[in-house]
């Protein structure tokens, strides 16, 4: 077996493939390492940190109250998350009340996207691709690691007895730990992750959407749509401040998709009809012509 692996590696070297192929394998091995490393205490801490981060994000933008849209996004989101390496997390998805364009993930299985982003999509496959990107941030613990580092959270579980649970919060954190995480969240989500984390989330997000049976080009299509939104409109200020430029993401993602022969899955489900049926509920009636012309 070992010898065969050596031959394969030598063969790959000869073909000039190694950096591409072996860099790609890192993601898979990283994921299996993460799966093994999770203990119940780790998981509890992740969920507590995630709840504090999510509370902070939802403080900036509340969930919309349209239950049909929220139910829809949760069903699509969970279906995509079930294809990931952490299907058993308590996944929560929500559309938040902003016309700007962005999406967020928080540790423990929280995924939020703005109404503005949802209304720039055209079908369920595009939604699945975006949710796949955010789910990957959770699966690979991108935010968790940054928040733990920033808030020095070794002590996070200690204050459980004087914790926020007594005040009715669903949390094992004490107020001090909660505040630390909240501060770290404000900093991290205003500046963004390492750019490589975003590129990794794009590649893996596409794979999760494809595994879920969707047309895998949805995320790429959304990125192209964003490329067509004028940055001066201000609608993508936060997204552009925290992510690589859409053009760079498109270039990296399309190269990876071509190398991975994702065109094989190009005929998978698009889900345009039911996407429009649900999301059109967020489209307000056109103002009367008189009102529109002031």
């Amino acid at each position: 077996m070992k010898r065969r692996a050596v031959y394969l590696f030598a063969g790959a070297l000869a073909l000039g493939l190694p950096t591409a192929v072996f860099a790609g394998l890192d993601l898979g091995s990283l994921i299996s390492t993460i799966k093994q490393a999770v203990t119940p205490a780790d998981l509890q801490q992740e969920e507590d940190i995630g709840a504090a981060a999510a509370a902070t994000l939802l403080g900036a933008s509340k969930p919309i109250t349209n239950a049909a849209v929220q139910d829809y996004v949760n069903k699509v989101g969970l279906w995509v998350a079930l294809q990931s390496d952490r299907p058993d997390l308590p996944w929560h998805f929500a559309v938040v009340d902003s016309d700007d364009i962005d999406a967020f993930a928080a540790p423990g299985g929280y995924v939020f996207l703005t109404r503005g982003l949802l209304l720039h999509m055209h079908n369920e496959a595009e939604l699945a691709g975006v949710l796949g990107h955010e789910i990957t941030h959770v699966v690979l613990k991108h935010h968790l690691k940054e928040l733990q580092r920033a808030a020095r959270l070794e002590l996070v579980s200690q204050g459980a007895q004087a914790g926020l649970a007594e005040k009715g919060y669903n949390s094992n954190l004490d107020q001090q730990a909660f505040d630390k995480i909240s501060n770290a969240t404000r900093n991290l989500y205003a500046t963004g992750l390492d750019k490589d984390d975003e590129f990794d989330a794009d590649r893996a997000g596409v794979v999760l959407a494809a595994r879920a049976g969707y047309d895998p080009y949805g995320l790429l299509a959304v990125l192209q749509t964003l490329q067509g939104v004028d940055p001066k409109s201000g609608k993508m200020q936060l997204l552009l401040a925290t992510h690589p430029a859409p053009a760079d993401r498109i270039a990296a993602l399309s190269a990876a998709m071509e190398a991975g022969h994702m065109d094989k899955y190009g005929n998978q489900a698009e889900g345009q009809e039911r996407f429009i049926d649900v999301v059109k509920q967020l489209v307000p009636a056109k103002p009367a012509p008189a009102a529109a012309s002031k």
Partner: protein
Amino acid sequence: MRRPLFIGALLLLVLGVVQASSGGTMAQTVTTAKMNDGPHSDAKAIGSVPVNTSLTIIERHGGWYHVRLADGQTGWLPMTNLRLNYGNARGSSSGSSSSGFFSLFESGRSGAAGTTATTGVRGLNTGDISNAKPDPQAVTELNQWAAKPPEARQFADQLPAKAVKVDYLPKVKP
């Protein structure tokens, strides 16, 4: 055998006309693009579109856009051979030619269903994040919408979206 094909072609044609009449998304080629008569690489080649050609996107299928050139010719181009123009994003706000259903939203802007917004656009910028006041109650309330795995599976079945095995993608230099 022939007739269903013919009807299918007619239907496509009608759909195409409907799409065309509702405008479309303007884009430009970023490279010389080979135009095919279908959305796959082994479809018949029907021409070549020079770089920087303006055209209209009719629809997308997988990694391909169905496009119309200024002279009326239609065909399929690989999606990454195109760049959408500013203000012409599919569903974008600022373009006069933004397409179809989503332009409705942009003309109304404020007050989507489920909100009481009457004061215009709700933003979310770095300042809003930096000054966010935590809302733990909102997190608890997310439970009301959470899906259970059987529900998610059933919903996927209805589409149908069937789970398939797909390996993670390699990281490659663009």
